């Protein structure tokens, strides 16, 4: 029993477990990300670029039933929804994977909000049933030309904050979110996620991965390889 709890503490307990187990708690998720990093940081070292399907297969080595959609979503973040068959570097992938996996529910909800905003519905505003304000809203929605990407950053920020107040699952700190969204006027969904992935503060909050410059350092393995 003690061993088991030790392993939980160390974060090893998620090795070779089924996906439902890994997903179950934030601690599990974080442990899994950590282990994935430990196992495969060597890949990044060679500068190899791998495709989405290959990352998926690597994940499946550690968790045989890891779903491919998660990897696909991660790929979308990295490649900004473009050509998901492109190759990705290890560091890009793992940071995006972290966001996608650790904050999975959060990402889903944000996506819904974003879609609503795109189509013009603002969930935060209260519609007063006077003809003028409704017209105003609809006209303002129609004013926005379709070419313009993304949604207004401040509105988006407000919505997210509103979500976070009543959100039951884990979410990135509102400070960090504000930081990101204050810098820009408009923001696209994947751009936002990418920014989350790159944010150092969020990374440290999660605690699974080291900072980007330290990502590929693995002194133990280097020793082993020199022995070969």
């Amino acid at each position, binding site marked *: 029993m003690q*061993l*088991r709890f*030790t*392993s939980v503490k*160390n974060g*090893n*307990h998620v*090795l*070779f477990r089924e996906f439902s187990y890994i997903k179950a708690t934030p601690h599990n998720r974080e442990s899994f990300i950590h*282990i994935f990093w*430990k*196992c*495969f*940081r*060597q*890949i990044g*070292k*060679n500068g190899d670029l*791998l*495709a989405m*399907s*290959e990352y998926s*297969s*690597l994940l*499946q*080595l550690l968790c*045989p039933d890891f779903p491919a959609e998660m990897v696909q979503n991660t790929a979308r973040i990295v490649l900004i929804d473009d050509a998901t068959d492109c190759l990705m570097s290890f560091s890009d992938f793992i940071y995006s994977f972290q966001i996608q996996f650790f904050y999975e529910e959060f990402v889903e909800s944000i996506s819904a909000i974003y879609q609503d905003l795109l189509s013009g519905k603002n969930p935060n505003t209260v519609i007063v049933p006077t003809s003028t304000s409704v017209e105003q809203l609809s006209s303002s929605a129609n004013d926005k030309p379709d070419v313009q990407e993304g949604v207004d950053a401040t509105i988006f920020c407000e919505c997210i904050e509103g979500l976070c107040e009543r959100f039951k699952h884990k979410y990135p700190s509102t400070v960090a979110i504000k930081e990101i969204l204050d810098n820009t006027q408009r923001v696209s969904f994947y751009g936002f996620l990418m920014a989350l992935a790159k944010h150092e503060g969020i990374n440290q909050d999660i605690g699974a991965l080291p900072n980007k410059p330290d990502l590929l350092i*693995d002194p*133990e*393995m280097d020793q*082993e*390889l020199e022995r*070969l």
Partner: protein
Amino acid sequence: MRSSKQRKCSSSGRFLPSAVHSSYKQHLAAVSSLLPDRLSRRPLDLRLSNDLKNTFNVDALKTQPCTSGETGSLRDSSVPNFLSATSFRDDISSCPERLDLDRRGLTDLPDLQSLRELHQLNLQHNLITHLQHLQSLRSLLLLDLHGNRLIDMCGLSSLRCLRVLLLGNNRIQRISDVDGLTKLDVLDLHNNQICQIENISCLSRLRLLNLSGNRITRVENLQGLNSLTELNLRHNSITSVTDVEHLPRLQRLFLSANNISSVDALACLWDCGSLSELSLDGNPVCVESCFRQSVLRCCSPHLQLLDMKRITEEERRTASVSARKEDEKKKESHKQAAHKERRRLAIQNAAQQWEGLKANLELPAQNDTKEEVSPDNSPAHSPAQTNGNAQETSPDEPRRLSPLTVSAGGSDTRLRSNSRPNSPRDPRLQDGSSGSSVQSLSLSESHVAELDGDTLRLFGPGALETLERCWGVQTAASVSTIIFRFIHYDSIIPSFLRIRLKFPNLTHLVFMECSISQLLQLAALAQLRRLEQLTVHPEGNPLLRLTLWRTFSIYRLQQLNLHKINGTEVTVNDVIASERMFGALGHVAATETPRFRLLLLLEESRKRQLQFLMDGRGRRSGQSPEDLKENGRPMGDGVCRGLFNYPSRLTDSAEDSASDRSVSVQQYLQGLIQSASSRCVKADALQKIWPLLFSEIIRDSVLDMRDTHTYRHNSLQRLTHTH
């Protein structure tokens, strides 16, 4: 041949067409013997010189009316006619039973009503076109009308005594009106225009039938000719021969110069028991090599002359021997062709099922296709067949698969259980037909298993169970390559252990269309003892789209000593690269996986290894799992790699027990939690009360000990009481 038939007129009297066989002469002689002997009157010669002509009574040219209104007309023709009325009358009066009226240029039959006793009437070489006035000739035995211009045979029916009827060299188009001629012995219709044999069924006494030189295409309608001994059908256009077997007395049959193009067309001749002479030359079939042999093979032993050549015993014997060989060869090639066809179909079916299964992978309604597959295999499954062995297994041979052995080569021995197989390459197999060193182990509608020298090929999921059978040691030792195709990889995995045990010399595995899609699946190959080559075809194996598969297989299967993967050498650099790529993974996995997990994941052999290591180390130096981290390497690379195993057992084991278990587990945990929390509560409570308790205890004891004398006394008393 025709030309020889057109005989030039000779000075001799009697003119017999040479087409008629010599026996005909005999016939005629026999018939003539019925006639009373008399001086045969020579017919007047056609070629008398002019001088001689003048000597004769020129008046003879003048016709004088005959007794009974003779209608024979004299015509101007190139042929000089001599008709002496007197001689005519002389004929009648001197020989009332025979009348020679040949070569007289007659265009019609003379009116012969008064000649009721006439036995022989010669009217050959005239110009007669119709038959008339024959009703009264009721005693006529021989009627010779050859060399005329007859178009049909109408008018013959009243000649009920007729024995010989010669109608050659006319223009007759149909055989007809012979129903009344029941006593007919010889019927000669050569060189006419007859297209069909017909209307002769009532001629039950007919012994010789000459239909040569006509336009007959089919030999048919020969029923009823119960006495026929010779049938001459030369120089027609015959293509098919039937009905000949119905002629019980037929001895000689002449079919030369026709259109028979295959020996099979003569099939009915072989049933003819009495046939002793046969001529077939001049037919297209004679061009075939071994024509004579093939005829001799099929004919009855009574046949003595074929195409005028006597048939010797020697010939017959060689013919039958070669016949048997031919048959065998044919059977063999048929069998092989059929086998090839079945094999092709089976492979096609396997491929189709493969496609079907792939398409239905997401749908849960897989059961239908799966059920299709299994009934195909079990009843249709045929035990091992061998080439060169014309045996089929008997139906009472037990169809259980395990006792059957693979007989590699095989003489005429049936497949018996526990029989040792012969050497894998039976010399007989190799000098069989081309490419037949392939030995089929199992063939059904949708799977094929065959052994080709040292390669074992398996198509379709049903083929896998050939691996379950008992294999002879030699045969199994000869297998060095196994090719899997159209079989789902997951279903092959359970067989790997068996393969490892059975085929000690296996060096190469090939996977085509096996739907290998995960890296972990390759790990299942580690169950083999050694493998030098691994080939995975990109078609049908989505795994090959990943670039990492090769590296992973080198890493995971290092202990197998792979030399080549998909044809390319595995170099030392490759090995190092794979270590670099996956080494960390293995290291982490080995060191960080909690011990109980390790035991769960590793195979038996490794478990024992690991167990030993763990316990040993623990005992010896009291090392904890943490210390093992540093010494991960000595645990053996095998252990690290061994962690990556593809679960061969399906994980859909009983879910009911799992849910029961989870319920009880939850209850247990709840109990634990409750006891832990209650203890916590108690501890909290104790914490709160403790100061008070403590001070009370102290106060009590201080009060007790205030009076030291009484205290001492009481304590001693207490002590003595307790003892």
